[in-house]
């Protein structure tokens, strides 16, 4: 019997459920703190403190904001398409959360006599699963912009379609280099293959391409053309308010986390530590979180640094520089691995 997605380690069904709830709860507990972290760090980049009034160090700020958003009136424009208008943010956040299942926080560990893999699920098509979810998440943005029945939302979603599709190609190609080197599609397998050397050194070009494409994929500055507030008011979520808006916002942050985790897993050796340090198993998730924080900080740092690209620059950069570079990287990697 052949399976399309063979799971490399099988656990009792109840452990799967506990793991799913745990990952969801922890991520959504950390998410609000991440928004504060971004705003505070962004503030430091601009000679100011950022939110520091609500609660200790301003940590209660997201709580206050969520209460505010939740109490807003639910409304939609008369020109909007009701069903799709409500479906789009749900689609966006669902696909974003789906990506969390793939993050490998650690290897298989013995917890209270049961072998538990410290990941949501370890499928043998790991990166493809993430790309599939990313593909569906475009629909969240596209439908949201189109169903709003507003010109600017529609423009934003059109930009999103062109930008996300063109950069996903480069991202995928940059990733294939890693897959060829590791000779596996399982994310835990890729981490274990990096015991010798982390892939960002042999795959430096691929790493840089992946990072640049990731900025475009998550709609972060300098590729935030999709929501270009100066030209498009807010892009695809212009007409959204209250909780649907929060859904889009959280989807963006979850996507950032997934992309950071993917970068940490594929290029920075996942839960491995350098110089042959082998800490006890419970340290692994913290190592992954630390590596994710590096990328999160990079995301924020870049946002504080670079101005938004012009649309034609974005397109020509994606197709004329990034894509040939990614292809070249893939070819060179393939030749070296085969030869």
């Amino acid at each position, binding site marked *: 019997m052949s399976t399309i997605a063979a799971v490399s380690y099988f656990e009792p069904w109840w452990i799967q459920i506990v793991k799913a709830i745990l990952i969801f709860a922890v991520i959504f507990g950390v998410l609000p703190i991440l928004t504060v972290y971004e705003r505070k*760090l962004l*503030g*430091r*980049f*601009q*000679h*100011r*403190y950022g939110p520091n009034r609500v609660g200790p160090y301003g940590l209660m700020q997201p709580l206050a904001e969520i209460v505010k958003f939740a109490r807003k009136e639910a409304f939609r424009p008369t020109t909007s398409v009701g069903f799709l208008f409500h479906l789009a943010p749900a689609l966006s956040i669902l696909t974003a959360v789906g990506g969390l299942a793939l993050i490998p926080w650690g290897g298989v560990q013995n917890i209270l006599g049961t072998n538990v893999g410290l990941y949501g699920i370890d499928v043998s098509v790991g990166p493809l699963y993430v790309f599939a979810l990313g593909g569906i998440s475009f629909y969240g943005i596209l439908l949201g912009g189109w169903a709003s029945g507003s010109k600017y939302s529609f423009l934003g979603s059109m930009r999103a379609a062109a930008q996300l599709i063109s950069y996903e190609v480069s991202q995928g190609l940059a990733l294939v280099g890693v897959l060829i080197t590791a000779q596996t599609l399982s994310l835990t397998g890729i981490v274990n293959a990096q015991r010798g050397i982390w892939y960002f050194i042999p795959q430096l070009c691929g790493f*840089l391409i992946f990072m640049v494409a990731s900025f475009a994929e998550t709609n972060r500055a300098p590729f935030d053309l999709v929501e270009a507030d100066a030209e498009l008011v807010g892009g695809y979520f212009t007409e959204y308010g209250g909780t649907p808006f929060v859904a889009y916002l959280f989807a963006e942050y979850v996507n950032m986390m997934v992309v950071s985790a993917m970068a940490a897993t594929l290029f920075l050796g996942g839960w491995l530590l350098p110089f042959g340090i082998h800490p006890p198993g419970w340290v692994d998730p913290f190592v992954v979180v630390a590596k994710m924080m590096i990328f999160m900080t990079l995301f924020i*740092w*870049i946002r*504080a*640094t*670079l101005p938004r690209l012009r649309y034609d620059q974005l397109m020509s*950069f994606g197709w*004329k*520089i990034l894509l*040939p*570079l990614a292809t070249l990287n893939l070819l060179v990697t393939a030749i070296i691995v085969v030869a």
Partner: protein
Amino acid sequence: MAYDPGSDVIEVVRHPPRNAAASTYRIFGETLRGMKTTLARVVEGPLTIQYPEEKTPVYPRFRGRHKLHRFEDSGLEKCVGCSLCAAACPADCIRVVSAENSPETRISAGERYAAVYEINLSRCIFCGYCEIACPFDAITMGHDYEMSDYTRSDLIFTKEMLLAEPLERTPLRTEGE
């Protein structure tokens, strides 16, 4: 003969060289330079003054809320109710009603005193003309600028309020600062 600009001609560089390798190098190099610049801002630290707790000191000549003064030795009011301040006021926010001093109740040093002295601070433009107009230095501009209130009538300051020793809520710049 046509004008020859000679060596004044500067070659205009409209864009950096257009080749992929140089562009890529430039993109990453300039990005790193920009990131260095922004990181330097983090190292410098915030410049924010946390206003309600921390205040920017004002200069001694800062024109804040008015003060009325008394003579320090006798305790008599300096204001003689001449209404010159009210006449000078461009916003017409000062109201003075004067009365005669009597030998029994002596309020000011002069012949007359201000029975009513009101400044409507919601109209005052803090120009300081009243201070200049006053022949006895009875009214001066203080340094207080935190005067917001909930009702308009609360912003009409009476003589007692203006004479009272004000809460110094504003730090003053020291010499040479």
